[in-house]
């Protein structure tokens, strides 16, 4: 069992600061290895995700955005912490709740907002919407809307990494609800059997849509599901950004070193409904409030201030800057053209011919 966020609280409320106490924690180690600016950068990423999604909700209400909208609000520390370990040659797969992972992987928010608006300048040209963000230049292979299936695609990319010796690692995100379908077990077995460099990150937010964890899964400690495959696994506090970073970092190194995949279960909570349509009958307001009061973003902000990494005034300035960026993304999306009718032709369904140079010229 890994360190829980409660311990972070204990540290920050102590009269002695973490630094002066000399105890080694994820925080002190991160500060030492990364420096203060990088710690502030993680704050910026989490806040950017938060504000971007709050704007999404607003735009959804105003019917600028259609379809399903699954928000990541409350779960930002997991995505930012986990993805912070990845190198450019690494890969990301995720599910339909994909805004946070995309932003953490460094996708520009203008094409993301444009995607939500169904515009040609969207990251998927307006064809995919909220559930299908992708950017191949960042090895961000997309959000997938069929629960569980993308785990196998992630294995496939990991197979490419292994066979072509790219030194790349694949990180794939999914929910607790995705660990009950056959694809999950197929993906874990393949990955362990062939020692594929995959880090499976299960974001356990205690519900699959509106079905509680204990109603949908015989084993509620999801990380133990890896035991059946002799796979390394861990359960971590997904709301403690620096803890996530460090522990998932170990998993990434394990996978990169050729020792095989790792299943990480990150405990977290979504503050909003499953999607914008959810009436949330399945949980009480009190429960949600309880989790909201332990907001990982607020906790991290407090840590940065208390530990004198960054004064509140500078964080406020970052927030203001983010608001401007988010507003600009709306303007960008609003002013972008809609996708053209070529998508309704064969050219929109079938790719151009593959390069022919490897083909025997006598055959062409």
């Amino acid at each position, binding site marked *: 069992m890994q360190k829980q966020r409660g311990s972070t609280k204990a540290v920050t409320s102590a009269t002695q600061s973490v630094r002066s106490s000399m105890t080694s924690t994820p925080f002190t180690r991160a500060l030492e290895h990364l420096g203060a600016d990088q710690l502030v950068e993680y704050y910026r990423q989490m806040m950017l995700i938060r504000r971007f999604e709050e704007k999404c909700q607003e735009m959804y209400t105003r019917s600028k955005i*259609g*379809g*399903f909208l699954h928000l990541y609000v409350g779960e930002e520390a997991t995505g930012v912490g986990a993805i912070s370990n990845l190198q450019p040659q690494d890969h990301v797969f995720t599910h339909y709740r994909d805004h946070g992972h995309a932003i953490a992987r460094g996708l520009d928010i203008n094409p993301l907002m444009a*995607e939500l608006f*169904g*515009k040609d300048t969207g990251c*998927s040209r*307006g*064809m*995919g*919407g909220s*559930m*299908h963000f992708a950017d191949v230049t960042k090895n961000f292979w997309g959000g*997938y*809307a*069929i*629960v*569980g*299936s993308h785990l196998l695609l992630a294995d496939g990319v990991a197979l490419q990494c292994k066979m072509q010796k790219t030194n790349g690692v694949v990180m794939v995100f999914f929910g607790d*609800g*995705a660990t*009950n*379908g*056959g694809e999950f077990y197929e993906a874990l077995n393949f990955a362990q059997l062939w020692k594929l460099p995959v880090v499976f990150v299960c974001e356990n937010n205690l519900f*699959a*849509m*509106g*079905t*509680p964890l204990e*109603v*949908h*899964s015989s084993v509620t400690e999801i990380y133990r599901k890896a035991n059946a495959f002799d796979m390394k696994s861990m359960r971590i506090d997904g709301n403690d950004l620096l803890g996530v970073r460090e522990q998932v970092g170990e998993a990434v190194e394990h996978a990169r070193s050729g020792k095989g995949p790792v299943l990480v279960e990150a405990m977290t909570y979504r503050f909003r409904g*499953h999607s914008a349509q959810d*009436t949330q*009958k*399945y949980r009480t307001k009190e429960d949600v409030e309880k989790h909201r009061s332990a907001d990982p973003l607020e906790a991290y902000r407090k840590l940065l201030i208390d530990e004198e990494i960054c004064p509140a005034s500078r964080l406020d300035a970052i927030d203001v800057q983010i608001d401007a960026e988010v507003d600009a993304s709306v303007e960008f999306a609003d002013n972008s053209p*809609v*996708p053209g*009718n070529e*998508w*309704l032709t064969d050219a*929109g*369904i079938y790719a151009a011919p593959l390069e022919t140079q490897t083909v025997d010229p006598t055959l062409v």
Partner: protein
Amino acid sequence: MAILTVREALQQALHEAMQDERVFIIGEDIGHYGSTYGVTAGFLEKYGPERIRDAPIAEAGILGLATGAAMAGMRPIAEIMSVNFSLLAFDIIINHAAKIYSMFGGKFSVPLVMRTTNGWTQLSATHSQSFDAMFAYIPGLKVVAPATPADMKGMFRAAMADPDPVIFIEHTLMYGIKGEVPDGDYIVPIGKSVLAREGRHLTVVTYSRMVHLSLQAAELLAQEGIEVEVVDLRTLRPLDMSVALESFKKTNHAVVVTEDWQSYGTSAEIATRLYEAGFDYLDAPIQRVNFREVPMPYAKNLELQVVVTTERIVAAIKKVLNRS
């Protein structure tokens, strides 16, 4: 007679079905969540978790368990939230549920009802499909797709009484549609089509949500003096073409409207049946109105061009009648 929505009619039918102790419902988010489209709202509270089984996200599992339970004497209702997710259960549905009766020499059958939904609303490529033709392709399955609240209730009852696996196709954009529903015991047999509107110039053959759009098109054309007859097939397998052919012999013109892709889709079978049995009565080539053949785009401007609209139906009818 009461005026009910499709949702309410289905609720009545499901409550009625639950009177049989052998009946249970298995599916995702049917209980605690309160039901994705509200049909089973309140059922968990009323019947308890033994019979209202919130299932893990495991479509093969849901259909597999339902098939086994049905073989052994239960009367399961398996709910697949969206037909797009049924793909994960196709092995169970096609290799197992549809085959078992015949393959084991007719010694036992699979009295199973699978409820599922078609639909679209900017949900993009994997969440906006119709697999009506893929189910209807399979001997051993029965496939129904009612259009009205009354038929929802009556055909659900027929499905529950059926000894074989029935795929019961609903539509997310139809739950709010209202209509008269007979009280009490009311059954509409599987495999019987019906006239939804009388006319004399042209026959529209359709089913499910497209019945409503076709009726709107007929209404519009009536103002121009074009009288369109609308046939609601209601069942895709076994397919009853008798009403459509009768109508076609009278009108000599036909348009087939289905909310799926055209090539190899349901309209291909329906139009072929018209050509095969109605060739001598044909005055003009049959037109088909369907989804454009692309994965559904998210962008609204494109989605609206892919789906079937009343305007497209009107245009097809005019084309067949050589009117502009």
